[in-house]
């Protein structure tokens, strides 16, 4: 019986072989849904349970958003081009994503977390940190709480999750990753060093490819190597703050606390074209569609942002981002689009083949307190009012009923 089968058979006790350990002082839980999108899709397609299933967006040119563990066993992972996933795993069933379902189930899962403690810090739709120190008397020890969460999520939402229990956020996150799928792992406070030091450096939260490369150049491979390097050396290699921070992590020290309701830092949308595009007009149109989508999301959440960023990925997968900060925060698609187009045109591309473009608004602030500097020459308020009216029409009649003329698809005559 493989681990996966064990998990899926509905065993509610922690998978065998994972230490329960002493969870005193381990008040941080990291809860992560297992193969979230794929698991949700399996709820629609129970006949596919136990087979490789890949959720990918954007047709044949899309990227893998999620895959069942049967597909992962063959090397498929998220963010991989769908075409490559198909080669690795030809027998897999490819499914298109249903984002509305994911949002609905995510909300249900977050509500379960909320019933445990108000100290929930969501990281994305399918994972969150919980600080359960205030719930111990009511609900039991941290690992008992973890098990209760796993049972409730399975019962109410029909999907499995894994829980890491530790004294700090980043160890809890590592722990949940180590017991996947459908597991629970406690890293006792006095065994953090033993747990961390054998790990590869890349496993540390916040170490990306660049940092890993820089550390490999110093001959550092494991967390133990990192921990036993003088902190000054790391500061020189990675910068003062980053070097010191990583060194602290390597010794299991993480001052970050669970912060509930973290404000969203940015809202963006990007899209991969069906085929690579070299016509600036087509790119502009996509930027407009993205600006519209981002602006309506901003307005729906009563946010506004000052920094507009675009992302462009070329046919060879090189990716660049450019951003510009406006003098005032905006939630108006027209302003976002004007800036996005200016940024794109400033790249001075000579019919380069573009694979993906995206628009992102950063530096978000509460839209209700934003002050709008009015201008003498135009009436931006009128644009904002028009876009708000389109939002209302969309709420009532569905997305896209009112849109810029250039985004209306003309049926072939």
């Amino acid at each position, binding site marked *: 019986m493989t681990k996966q089968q064990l998990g899926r058979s509905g065993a509610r006790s922690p998978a065998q072989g994972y230490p329960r350990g002493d969870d005193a002082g381990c008040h941080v839980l990291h809860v992560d849904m297992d193969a979230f999108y794929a698991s949700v899709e399996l709820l629609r397609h129970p006949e596919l349970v136990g087979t490789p299933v890949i959720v990918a967006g954007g047709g044949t040119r899309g990227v893998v958003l999620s895959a069942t563990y049967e597909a992962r066993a063959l090397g498929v992972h998220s963010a991989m081009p769908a075409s490559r996933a198909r080669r690795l795993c030809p027998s897999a069933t490819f499914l298109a994503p249903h984002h509305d379902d994911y949002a609905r189930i995510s909300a249900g899962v977050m509500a379960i977390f909320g019933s445990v403690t108000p100290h929930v810090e969501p990281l994305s739709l399918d994972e969150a940190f919980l600080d359960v120190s205030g719930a111990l008397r009511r609900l039991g020890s941290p690992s008992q709480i973890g098990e209760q969460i796993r049972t409730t999520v399975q019962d109410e939402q029909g999907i499995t999750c894994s829980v890491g229990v530790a004294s700090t956020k980043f160890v809890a996150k590592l722990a949940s990753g180590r017991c996947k799928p459908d597991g629970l792992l406690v890293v006792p406070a006095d065994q953090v060093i033993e747990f961390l030091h054998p790990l590869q450096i890349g496993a540390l939260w916040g170490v990306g490819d660049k940092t890993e490369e820089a550390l490999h150049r110093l001959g550092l491979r494991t967390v133990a190597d990192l921990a036993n390097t003088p902190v000054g050396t790391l500061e020189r290699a990675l910068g003062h703050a980053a070097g010191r921070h990583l060194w602290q992590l390597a010794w299991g020290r993480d001052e970050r606390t669970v912060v509930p309701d973290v404000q969203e830092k940015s809202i963006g949308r990007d899209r991969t074209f069906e085929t690579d595009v070299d016509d600036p007009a087509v790119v502009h149109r996509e930027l407009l569609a993205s600006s519209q989508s981002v602006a309506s999301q901003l307005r729906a959440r009563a946010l506004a942002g000052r920094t507009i960023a675009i992302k462009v990925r070329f046919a060879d997968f090189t990716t660049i981002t450019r951003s510009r900060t406006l*003098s*005032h*925060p905006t939630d108006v698609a027209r302003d976002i689009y004007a800036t996005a187009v200016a940024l794109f045109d400033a790249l001075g591309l000579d019919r380069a083949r573009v694979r993906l473009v995206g628009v992102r608004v950063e530096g978000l602030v509460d839209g209700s*307190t934003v*002050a709008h*500097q*009015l201008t*003498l*020459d135009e009436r931006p*308020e009128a644009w904002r009012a028009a876009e708000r009216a389109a939002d209302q029409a969309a709420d009532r009649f569905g997305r896209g009923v009112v849109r810029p003329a250039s985004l209306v698809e003309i049926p072939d005559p």
Partner: protein
Amino acid sequence: MKFRVERDVFAEAVAWAARSLPSRPPLPVLAGLLIDAQEGGLTLSSFDYEVSARVEVEADVSEPGSILVSGRLLADITRSLPDRPVEMSTEEGDRKAQLVCGSSKFSLQTLPREDYPSLPVMPDAAGTLPGAEFAAAVAQVAVAVGRDDTLPVLTGIRVEFEGDRLVLAATDRYRLAVRELHWVPGRTDLTTVALVQGRSLADTARALGDAESVTIALTGSGSGEGLIGFEGAAGKESRRTTNRLLDGEFPKYRALLPAEASSVAVIESSALLETVKRVALVADRNTPVRLAFEEGQLVVEAGAGDEAQAVESLECGYTGEALTIAFNPQFLQEGIAALGTAYTEISFTTSTKPAVIAGRTEPESASDGSYRYLIMPVRLSG
């Protein structure tokens, strides 16, 4: 070439001529400053195809000639020289120039004189006005000049010539400054407009502020390849500059000036300026100051919610319904400061329509219509 000149005279002349030198010249020679020494005086000039500057000063020229040297370097040197007469001469057949002042000696490389473009010819004089008046008027509108180079038209100051009247206007879309003044035109039927690079005009006007009389010169229609020239004499110096006019249509600003106001406030200028400055200390970038007007009183506030807050009230003559309006504090301060009058009059229509700032010499006197500063409010929340 060889000449001897007073240090102060030379430093000022070099500073004037080097002022418009481009920091990244399109051609290396355009970073140069041309020194032309002839019997009785020097002419220093610079040109970057947009702006030319020329200044004549008295000097003791013992050997006439002309050279081109790096303007920025010469300006840096002359600014820091000791207070002794300056002697400049060429050696090695004009390939190097030597500058001696007291015991300091500088040897400068010269640039190829033959590659230097000839300066545009000064256009025909159109009229004159006192330098100080010109400088003050330009400074008043320069505050509203746009800084966004992607909107070149708004980086200019529009100059309208209508007989014996000049109208200067500038806007950056958030405010508009309009100044009217009288001058002495060469011919009374002169009617034309010119759009002049704002920053450069402000510099020019300031530098000609000491001149008893400034001559404005214009070519042709006043657009396209048009040129505007300014010339003034201060003491023993004669300064002159030409600017290429900007292209483009300046916004039709007259329609923006409200015909009437629903309420009017009159406040002592210095008190208002101080208050706004203080209250604005808690206003982060892009957050406004709020002005609440009611009979006899103005309350200025900034900050909200969890952030730092400030409030201050001051005496104010007010007629009209109570009104709360918010402004960018910097725009507001610049407008009040530009007035230069003891009292500030602000007239409003509504809290989302432009307010007009004008000066008054006394609380009860009529407003000074020669300068108006239109400011767009900030709309709060929503």
